[in-house]
């Protein structure tokens, strides 16, 4: 299912932080999880995932480390305590946003 890209803009950070709050993951795994859980609504160009993850790493929200997998080194990402704080704040803001949007779309003004 496809939605207007403008609608999903800005949500990738929250999604990635949320996914990493469940377990440590590597790039491809994150893309798969994002796509599966959102029924492909939040699929992103896979090449753009890494600069995005690296940006979160720069800001100290996630950390990366290498682990051996199948005889080769693979880079995994994990959430940091600062990332956990940012995730909670983003979830709170997202809740406010969706509730407000729902009220508008459902015509909560009683009309």
């Amino acid at each position, binding site marked *: 299912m496809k939605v207007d890209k403008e609608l999903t803009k800005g949500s990738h950070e929250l999604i990635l932080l949320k996914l990493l709050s469940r377990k440590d993951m590597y*790039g*491809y795994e994150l893309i798969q999880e994002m796509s599966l859980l959102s029924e492909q609504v939040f699929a992103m*160009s*896979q*090449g*753009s*995932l*890494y*600069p*995005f993850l*690296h*940006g979160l790493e*720069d*800001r100290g929200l996630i950390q990366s480390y290498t682990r051996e997998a199948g005889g*080769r*080194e*693979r*880079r995994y990402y994990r959430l940091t305590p600062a990332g956990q704080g940012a995730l909670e704040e983003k979830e709170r803001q997202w809740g406010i946003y969706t509730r407000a949007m729902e009220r508008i779309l459902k015509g909560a003004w009683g009309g």
Partner: protein
Amino acid sequence: MTWQDEFIKVCLKKVPAGAYRIRTEAELREHMEILIQERRAAGAGEEQLRREVLARMGDPARLQKAYQAEGLRRKALEPRYIAECWLTSVVWMELCWFVLYLLLAAVGFGNDSGAFPLYAHPGRTLFVGAVSAVLPTLVSGWYLSGALRFHLHPKRMVCAGLGLIWLVICLEQLGLSALAYGIPLWRLGELFARLSGGSDPTFPWFTPLYAGLLLVWCLLVGIGLPQVRRALDARGAGEEAGQN
């Protein structure tokens, strides 16, 4: 060179060489290998597989910008790179100063000679002092705001660089005058008085007030120029997006 190599090469073309580039190349390569295995397992032929993997990875020309920005941001966070930028900005300031003094001398400005002697002319002295403060710091600030624009805190970094420039200017003017007049640096009051008070002064505009204002100016430049750079970058990106 395989099509995967070609794709990665385009994506990372503008990423500075170093640890970040190596690591990103490994991540991209592994990601593409997983995608290839997945498509192969689904029964895709080589050409179909290539098209599908490239489509999923995205337009390499667009990705190149994202990787370049991230690569430069990483570079800008390296203490060695920051120190190099600061030192280069000092060199820019010195070069600008040198050229400016040659031009002023060519026009006829001189301490107590030439068409426009500074001695006993406070207006001219102020003009030369202002020009020799504003231009070199603007040139250095412009360089710094460009070189450090990908840092997480560009304003702080540019302000720190300009703070260093302020220190160099003060030490230079005070140091040279201390040598010229044989007054040690720690007798600052005496040195300032000799600089701006007597005949044949080396830098007659250099007073404690001037040094203070110069510091304020450096900080203003350090705060302002990164914002100008950011606005110009955003405008450039907007125009580019409009063209696409």
